[in-house]
């Protein structure tokens, strides 16, 4: 009887440990995705805010700086399309397969 109880308890503990490990892996993935999504959100916010504070004639230079400097520092690929209307920005995190594309505000005077 004692041996049966030990075996049963051991089995329950083993199954529980496996579930905990699986949950930890899922949790780690979720955390990583949240962190990378947050970085995309920070980059997007910086792009939108600085675009609004840049005069139309300086936006080509601004776009170059955003793509190279900001993209490199955040580890993201940033492509600003000022040629077409509406103007768009594509931010890609190639390592984790995340991306976001959004439209920049276009005024009649731009």
């Amino acid at each position, binding site marked *: 009887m*004692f041996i049966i109880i*030990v075996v049963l*308890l051991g089995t*329950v*503990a083993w199954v*529980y*440990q496996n579930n*905990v490990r699986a*949950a*930890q892996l899922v*949790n*780690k993935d979720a*955390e990583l995705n*949240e*962190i990378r999504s*947050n970085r995309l*959100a*920070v980059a997007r*916010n*910086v792009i939108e*805010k*600085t675009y609004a*504070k*840049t*005069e139309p004639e*300086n*936006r080509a*230079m*601004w776009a170059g*700086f*955003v793509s190279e*400097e*900001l993209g490199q*520092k*955040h580890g993201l690929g940033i492509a600003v399309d000022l040629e077409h209307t509406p103007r768009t920005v594509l931010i890609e995190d190639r390592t984790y397969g995340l991306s976001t594309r959004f439209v920049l505000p276009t005024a009649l005077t731009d």
Partner: protein
Amino acid sequence: MVQMTRGQALALEAVLALFIAILFIYLLLGTGVKSGWDMRLERAGYDVVNALYVDDEMYDALVTGAERNGYSAAESSVISARLARYVAILSISRIELDVEGTASFYAQSGNLPNKPLNKETFHALLPLRQGENVRGVTVTVWV
């Protein structure tokens, strides 16, 4: 083979059962799903970077000093006071703000925790003279 009395066998069984119970409770309760990352860093980083642009007074002080390549005492005071305010609002330990090649500012909580702090770095941009020039800004938050 060692012969045990019934009493000895029962005592040994009780000791073994106690060990197994302790092990079982440890396995069941001693391992939870612990977070390896302090997400307050991410939230605070976003908020501080956002504050650079929406807090007009701090933004004006940052831009004016960066355009001049140096900060006056009044501008530094505004920036430091705002950073101290954000440290309090966001319940974090420290904020460092580095305007590329110009100046660094920081503010920290009065009661720092008695343990090593975690930090994370975020990057932003400051358009100077309506975007004629762009200056990089590094924000480091500590929790």
